[in-house]
């Protein structure tokens, strides 16, 4: 079987996902177009050789609807003969795009793909595409649906993470992100987003709060306590699934949860032959991919079983992995991963994560693969594992290996 390689990875800076965010004026199509064009230009890519553009997005309505992938291709400088595929695995959409591309390359279905995703959270509100699992009683009740924040608090309760531990993890994420930006560690991948005249709009992640400390976080109210304990009372639903818990410990808030941001990312995936034909040098091999379903109520524990699965399926051990990217959807998600595998926090999210820089749902999976690759190169390590928790109880993982 052919191997699949990463030839390049780029991303936009992440803009605050609100009306005053810098990228709020940019359309999902425009942001997608700019990262697609960047990946084309950086590799001087003959786009006719690209089999497909696989584009992750978690909210496929309005400007993100109607197969945004194809719209973005048409808006970009890509050859119109390149099709587009919009996919949705919620927060792992961008990773799934890369994994799907890699597995098709391996199977011989095309030599090269551009895979990634976009999410304009300031323009297309999270959840505005509807979701039967939340509102259709026949499934919402039977699957004990609770919102993600409640699920994150269940993780904290079930696995014993205190508010202080969650806050400390968030402070560390902010510190690492600030240090990484200061050291220029994202320079290789982050492109400047521009207007139609070429004037710059944003060149740096703007969600970060480097002055965050325990005291500031300590002043924030738990975000999900009201909806959990009072109206409509999701904790009661949580305890139907987890009856050994007497109460849910509400520890998460805006400061130790991932930020709502706008952003996009793209990864160029291809076979060895593709690189040789186009004079491109591969940066990493996509060693393994995996996805899994887990309990939908606690919902966000997927990184643990999917990591077990990916390691077992490929005869690897956790100690084989040099660096980890675990998407910081909530502090407890990353804390649970480190607890389950007993891994050194110094090898996880070394340049910060979504708590500091934000989590543009459909793009993040591709972003963290790029961040992992940059850091493997910078620190001259070999193997990296990226993983995300996914809504409705799923998990996804990718292992990359420098070549």
């Amino acid at each position: 079987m052919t191997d699949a390689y990463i030839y390049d990875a780029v991303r936009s800076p992440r803009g605050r996902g609100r009306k005053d965010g810098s990228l709020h004026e940019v359309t999902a199509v425009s942001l997608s177009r700019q990262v697609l064009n960047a990946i084309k230009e950086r590799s001087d890519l003959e786009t006719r050789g690209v089999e497909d553009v696989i584009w992750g997005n978690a909210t496929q309505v309005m400007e993100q609807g109607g197969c945004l992938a194809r719209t973005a291709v048409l808006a970009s400088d890509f050859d119109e003969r390149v099709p587009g595929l919009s996919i949705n695995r919620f927060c792992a959409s961008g990773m799934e795009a890369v994994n799907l591309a890699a597995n098709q390359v391996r199977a011989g279905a095309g030599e090269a793909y551009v895979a990634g995703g976009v999410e304009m959270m300031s323009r297309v509100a999270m959840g505005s595409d509807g979701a039967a699992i939340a509102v259709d009683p026949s499934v919402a009740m039977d699957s004990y649906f609770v919102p993600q924040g409640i699920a994150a608090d269940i993780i904290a309760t079930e696995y014993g993470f205190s508010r202080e531990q969650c806050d400390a993890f968030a402070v560390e994420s902010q510190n690492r992100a600030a240090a990484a930006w200061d050291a220029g560690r994202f320079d290789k991948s982050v492109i400047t987003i521009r207007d139609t005249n070429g004037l710059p709009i944003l060149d740096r992640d703007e969600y970060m709060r480097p002055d965050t400390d325990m005291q500031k976080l300590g002043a924030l109210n738990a975000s999900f306590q009201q909806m959990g304990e009072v109206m409509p009372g999701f904790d009661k639903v949580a305890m139907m699934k987890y009856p050994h818990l007497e109460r849910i410990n509400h520890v998460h808030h805006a400061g130790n949860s991932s930020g709502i941001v706008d952003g996009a990312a793209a990864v160029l995936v291809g076979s060895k032959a593709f690189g040789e034909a186009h004079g491109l040098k591969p940066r990493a091999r996509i060693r393994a991919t995996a996805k899994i379903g887990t309990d939908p109520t606690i919902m966000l524990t997927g990184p643990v079983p999917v990591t077990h699965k990916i390691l077992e399926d490929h005869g690897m051990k956790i100690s084989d992995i040099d660096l980890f990217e675990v998407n910081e959807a909530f502090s407890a998600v990353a804390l649970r991963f480190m607890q389950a595998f007993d891994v050194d926090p110094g090898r996880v999210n070394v340049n910060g994560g979504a708590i500091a820089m934000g989590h543009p749902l459909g793009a993040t999976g591709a972003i963290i693969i790029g961040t992992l690759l940059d850091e493997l190169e910078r620190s001259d390590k070999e193997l990296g594992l990226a993983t995300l928790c996914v809504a409705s109880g799923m998990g996804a993982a990718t292992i990359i290996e420098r070549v």
Partner: protein
Amino acid sequence: MTDFTMDKGADGVAVITWDVPNKSMNVLSFDALKTLDGLVEDALGDDAVKGIVITSGKPDFAAGMDLNVLAKLRDDAGANPAKGLFDGIMQMHGALRKIERAGMDDKNKGGKPIAAALPGSALGIGLEIPLACHRIFAADNPKAKIGLPEIMIGIFPGAGGTTRLARKLGAMAASPFLLEGKLSEPSKAKSAGLIDEVVADPVAAAKDWVLSASDKDIVKPWDEKGYKMPGGAPYHPAGFMTFVGASAMVNGKTKGVFPAAKALLSSVYEGALVPFDTALRIEARYFTSILMNPSSSAMIRSLFINKGALEKGANRPDAPDQTVRKVGILGAGMMGAGIALVSAQAGIEVVLVDQSREAAERGKAHSATYMDEGIKRKKATPEKKEQMLGRIEATDDYAALAACDLIVEAVFEDPSVKAEATRKVEAVIGPDCIFATNTSTLPITDLAEVSQRPEQYIGIHFFSPVEKMNLVEIIKGAKTGDRAVAKALDFVRQIRKTPIVVNDARFFYANRCIIPYINEGVRMVAEGVAPPLIENGAKLVGMPLGPLQLVDEISIDLGVKIAKATRAAMGDAYPDAAVDEVLFAMADQGRMGRKSGSGFYAYEESGKRKGLWEGLEAAYPVSEGQPEVSEVQHRLLMAQVLEAVRAFEEGVLTDIREGDVGAILGWGFAPWSGGPFSWLDIIGATRAVAICDVLEADHGTRFKAPQLLRDMAAKGESFYGRYGDGQSVKAA
């Protein structure tokens, strides 16, 4: 004589009057619905008729569907009951939709106005028919109740009421009426949008309206182009939040054991996404599923049909009327004071006796406080309070009991105290007076030994608090005569409570089942089962309180007292030493339950429960491997249910209907199941025996399946199949 009759007036208004012969309230049968449909058809086709008014010939409009019909609907639905039920429900929709469309064409032209005129209460289908009409007029009658209480009996409004009300008011505004069965008096029903007008003469107003209504006035919003659900359909941003919250709330509240609420919500959700007629069909499919669910028929059977039968004296011996005129209550403590209150409320003269005048007055003051609360909440008046207090004579003089025809002795739970009270009372009362002792645990036959007339001596077990708990357990001692039983039953009927009659045995019926439930929970604590798993496991099968919370409420020292007495009586055969270890340790630390501000739970100063006591885990560490919640639930349910079966097998309980009704009313046994015997019928004797076998192997002989259950499993029989008509084991 038919249930509906029509009178076509010279003014062009056809008045259809609902008046079921020989019943005080209108209830709907399927035959009657066909009659109504025929009359509507006739009026719509008659050029002389300009409009129709549907009203009642009784003080109220209607009480709803005939529950006797409803309970047997599934059995009567033919070889393919789901299809039979669905077709029947669709016919009902057809009849009501005919009223709603009233002969209109597809441009909403040419229909005849149809109004409902409600003289009084309109409940269930008694409101669903009006909701299909074009305008609802109710009499200005503050005593009338208007609403859709179906959810309270384990079903939901299935004649279009769910779909119509959700579309009329929106999901959020309709939810108290649909999901909680909220009833309103006419003026409140009008402001909520349930009905349209409150008037002095609803028939006259309705006639005026049908004669003046235009084509536009009779078109329902959902039959017009561009209809939007108030508050937003499920995928409208506002509606989305409503529906997310609704599923969570219903889930948390019903704990997944009341299928009707979920089916109702699904009808509203799925119905909101399709045109009206399709929504009715969806409602019919879900309603069919609920009628097919054994839980709904079991609930209707226990909570209405059999409860009603027991209240009407199903097990009353053949004896002359024993209406109580004057009751003597001995002991003015919490129980005595409560019994005095409910007796005086029922219009019975009360003599309340205690050792001192002050103690008796304190007991009487309880009634005053209770009435003051009622006045504050506008449920009572100062006049009523005075009348009621006037019926209670508080005294320390036993001679005042001389004229009483019933004595209820509610002194301290101690045989010698009770014996002395019995002797003193019997010295003053007349020869026909019946003596009832209120006790929750002491054997009646033993207590009766001091009585000069044991055939007039009976046990009567009130539940606390008396004014709230609706069950009364009547216990026959070995020598208790029929007239004493009739007296107790007539008294319970007067105070509007529900009686069960049992034979004398340790803990009678209710406590015999409650104690093993508590013990099983406490035993699990000792075993290292996580306490929240015990408590949540209980609630997730529909128990209102977990066993640990229950023993905290009852008080742990009472548990200790009962355990010690039982131990003394049983000697080496006593099976609950493991339980006592925990209970006695709690008592030794002064943790007596809620009343002491500490027990299995911790309490705030105000008495509010904070959460499980943190020391519990230190004393009884939670073990590594926890059982499945289903195992916890089987233990907690079977602990109660097997006692109920044994009580029946031994002849303590003589009627499974009493066993089921008593369990739900007495200690809140999983109401969705219809009671312990109904639950066994739902799961089937074979499966019940299999569960017992596993539990017995894992946890001991207390879970050994009773022979009666094994016999039924072997023969493929059910409790209600064998004993549903009230027969006892012995009679059968």
